[in-house]
């Protein structure tokens, strides 16, 4: 047996799972190898000391101090508040994801959707019926868009899309950070 195997057996010995046959093998090796023998004595001393380690009693004022602190906590801290927060969080995320996802889909399949609308009669009739209100909304959006563009161009000469990209990027990044942070604090708890 080599020293590496002997160390494995010593570990088994420390775990109290050394078989009788292995014990004989180990003994034989320890008789021949001084280095392993020294290691074994140290390990044995270690186990002996570990066994004498006892749990230490807390200071006498521990419990009293603690209960004062617990009593001082706001009474609602053990109720379902965290779960309510979880709900709010997930709803916000749900809405955000749906809006973001459908926005991307609409953008990607823009041409296909428009050609489908123009081909399908019922849908295009519906579209015509809705389009007056739609147009008003689009007009408002365009107005706002122009307004923002005016400001940003005035501010720094940025292209409006660059500006929007940065804003979107920062807000998505902030949301991700917030999510990770809340998850982390949950895991810590």
């Amino acid at each position: 047996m080599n020293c590496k195997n002997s160390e494995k057996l010593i570990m088994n010995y420390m775990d109290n799972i050394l078989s009788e046959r292995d014990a004989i093998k180990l003994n034989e090796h320890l008789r021949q190898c001084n280095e392993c023998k020294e290691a074994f004595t140290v390990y044995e001393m270690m186990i002996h000391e570990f066994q004498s380690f006892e749990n230490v009693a807390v200071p006498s004022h521990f419990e009293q101090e603690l209960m004062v602190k617990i009593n001082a906590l706001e009474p609602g801290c053990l109720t379902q508040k965290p779960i309510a927060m979880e709900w709010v969080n997930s709803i916000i995320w749900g809405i955000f994801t749906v809006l973001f996802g459908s926005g991307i889909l609409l953008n990607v399949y823009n041409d296909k959707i428009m050609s489908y609308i123009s081909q399908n009669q019922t849908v295009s009739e519906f579209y015509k019926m809705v389009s007056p209100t739609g147009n008003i909304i689009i007009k408002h959006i365009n107005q706002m868009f122009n307004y923002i563009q005016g400001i940003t161009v005035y501010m720094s000469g940025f292209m409006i899309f660059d500006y929007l990209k940065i804003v979107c990027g920062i807000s998505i990044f902030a949301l991700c950070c917030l999510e990770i942070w809340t998850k982390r604090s949950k895991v810590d708890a």
Partner: protein
Amino acid sequence: MKTIDDYDLIQFCIKGDQDAFSEIVCRYKNLVYSVILRMVNDHEEANDLAQEVFIKVYKNLDKYSPEYKFSTWIMRITTNLVIDYRRKRKQETVPIDEMDYEISSADTPENSYIQKEQENIVSTAIRSLPDMYRMPIILYHQQDLSYQEIGEIIGEPLSKVKNRIFRGRKMLKEKLIEMKEGNTL
């Protein structure tokens, strides 16, 4: 009160029974305190941290799920808190050697001298281990927990726990031999 099991006690606590929590504290205070004391080596710090652990336990009682033993759950909170605390302290650059000296002179003089001396040697050696080896060693050898339970506490698979304990023992052995040689020289 002693016959009520932990899970029922927790349910009482959630319903607002402070006495039930006081019983939980009674059952686990020494366990939590001892493990923390082995990690931070200072009675006052250990006291503060143990209080923090129980406040955290109290605030999160409703999140406890009975798939784990309650002691495992408490140990998990303790481990996270202490390791986090030590990480923060390390950033404030506290020399570890200094902490070692403090504890060896602050122990209560109740055990016989030689016994205490040896225990101190092993304790000091344990203190030299990095946290990732130290915690499993303490949980296994001092608290007699199984590899399985330690895995649940530190959130690592069994093989990793075993590995860390084996390596931890080996590092301890080397440290102890080093200390022995240092003494005789």
